[in-house]
């Protein structure tokens, strides 16, 4: 499971990370083929592994702006199976909406994955176990976490490329809030807000660090994200073996300075790489796909090129 991947390493001790940027202008493309080609570059140790995909499903939104698009989830599942995974399940614990069934039925996840019972797990209502957090950035110390996550061999964070009105951007690290079970902490999981969003992001990801991240940036969200922003077609999938490096690359694509996003800057010290010279870039260059995202006036300091 991903706890095995949670070892905290100072950046200078961590080998370089690898991030790929894939152009994809539409969800109607053969995303499975595009992703598979990119994933083969990573030589992932997947044979016989239980893979868990953790998308970002927030609320029933047939418009496809708020949630990770089910076409991306379906393509990722197909790819990990082709790469030798023993099983690939999809799991999410939405933060505000208790009726997870309503979300997955509204976005028609079934159309991309087939029958959902047994394949999709509502992490909000899963069996839970107490886990001591690997860092003490917050005062949480311990969280009850879902069995489905703890038993997975390989966790993939599968968020959408979105701005966030409190922390700047919500990407693969922030997406891991969704593993915290609502049945213990409520809807929203307010304990994480009171413990500090940045600190909670660090504690959760130090304990269950995603083994891989794939960000749905085909259509992202800008402005007052992560729920009330507006669609931002960006035409990219961004994936890699280090969630910090993937998020940093996403931020750069969005026109934001990752080192000014508090949780990313801190994650860059122990959880992964933030600096470009430690990230091996595959596929498209950042410059060729850069699509500046609008952010709220209070977050203008995060925009690359603005005075810090």
């Amino acid at each position: 499971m991903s706890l095995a991947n949670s070892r905290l390493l100072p950046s200078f001790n961590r080998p370089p990370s690898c991030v790929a940027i894939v152009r994809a202008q539409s969800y109607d493309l053969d995303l499975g083929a595009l992703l598979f080609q990119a994933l083969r570059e990573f030589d992932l140790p997947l044979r016989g592994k239980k893979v868990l995909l953790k998308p970002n499903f927030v609320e029933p939104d047939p418009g496809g702006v708020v949630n990770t698009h089910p076409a991306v989830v379906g393509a990722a599942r197909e790819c990990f199976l082709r790469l030798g995974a023993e099983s690939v399940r999809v799991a999410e614990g939405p933060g505000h909406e208790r009726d997870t069934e309503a979300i997955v039925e509204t976005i028609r996840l079934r159309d991309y994955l087939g029958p959902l019972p047994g394949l999709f797990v509502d992490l909000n209502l899963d069996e839970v176990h107490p886990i001591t957090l690997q860092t003490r950035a917050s005062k949480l110390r311990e969280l009850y976490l879902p069995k489905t996550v703890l038993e997975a061999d390989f966790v993939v964070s599968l968020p959408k490329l979105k701005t966030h009105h409190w922390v700047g951007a919500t990407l693969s690290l922030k997406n891991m809030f969704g593993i915290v079970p609502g049945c213990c902490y409520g809807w929203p999981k307010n304990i994480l807000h009171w413990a500090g969003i940045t600190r909670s992001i660090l504690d959760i990801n130090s304990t269950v660090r995603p083994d891989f991240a794939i960000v749905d940036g085909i259509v992202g969200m800008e402005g007052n994200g992560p729920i009330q922003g507006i669609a931002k077609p960006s035409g990219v999938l961004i994936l890699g073996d280090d969630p910090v490096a993937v998020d940093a690359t996403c931020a750069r694509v969005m026109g934001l300075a990752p080192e000014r996003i508090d949780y990313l800057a801190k994650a860059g010290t122990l959880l992964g790489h933030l600096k470009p010279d430690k990230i091996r870039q595959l596929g498209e260059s950042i410059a060729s796909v850069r699509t500046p995202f609008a952010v709220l006036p209070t977050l203008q300091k995060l925009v690359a090129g603005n005075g810090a």
Partner: protein
Amino acid sequence: MDGMLPSENGGGEAYREAVNSGQLANTYCRHFLITNQNPDGGWGYHRASPSSVEATSWVLMALTSWSQAPALTETCARGHAWLLQAQLPDGSWPAFPGQRQGCWTTSLASLALHLQGGSPEAVVRGLNWLLDAWPADGTLWWRLRQFLARSAVVHQDISLRGWSWTPGTASWVEPTSHALLLLRSLPPGLLPPRAAKRQRLAERMLYDRMCPGGGWNSGNPLVYGVAGVPRIGPTAWALLALIDQPQRAENQMSLDWLARAYAGIRGATSLALAHRCLAAYGRQVPPLAPALGELYLQNRFFESVLAVAWIALAWGGEGSRAGKTAGESLTS
């Protein structure tokens, strides 16, 4: 799992007909809940998953809403005993046994025990814990910090307080509604004087947190000046908690929103809650069976105990009259 419905594989049209005709209510729900009781007497969120306080409380309320057939008596008694055993020494209930801290499930467990009858001491201990459990927002220190920060993130009366999901966090719509449902269900003689103050404050909090145009979300009606989008669940819970004021404009506006949203609901729990709420207020609402039948055929409600319990409660409310008390609105 199918219980007494015709087999899906062999049944074909008969299966679909059984699902859509209401057999889902009469046979499947009851069978599902009874057969998925854990050996320890409680219920988990899914078959064979560890017993949880929330799931057990809702199943007990659902079973109580049916006539007390002898076959159910023992099932309910074992569930009742499990809940009593799960209560913490301070009177609260955690989400799962073994957890050291009580939380929002205390309202549900107390309500389930009260509605089932018996164990008034346990109910009073739960009630007292709830009445002493103030959320962390709304304190003088908190309000001072908000003032100094000149926070423009949310626009709400921060002096109003209800109940939080977990100790040390803020007030939210759903746990506040659950606590109000309990307070309104208990006989006045059981309520200490301080209960009235908390009830009034919590009701004001709920009305303050209503989204512009009616309905509730988890508790943020306006963020950065943008109106929050109401959600089915919180709206139904808040309306059920505020059912003693049915003609109030906010209630009517929110009922209108819920009625408009009803046709677009794609989840069994939301559908059941919305139906239960609209029926409790005496609103005309389409029969449940066809819509639930479609969802069942798609995903079998994800085999969720909670979903089936809420569906059973909703079915218990079909054709019910308006003007019920909060407790009655859930279980009769």
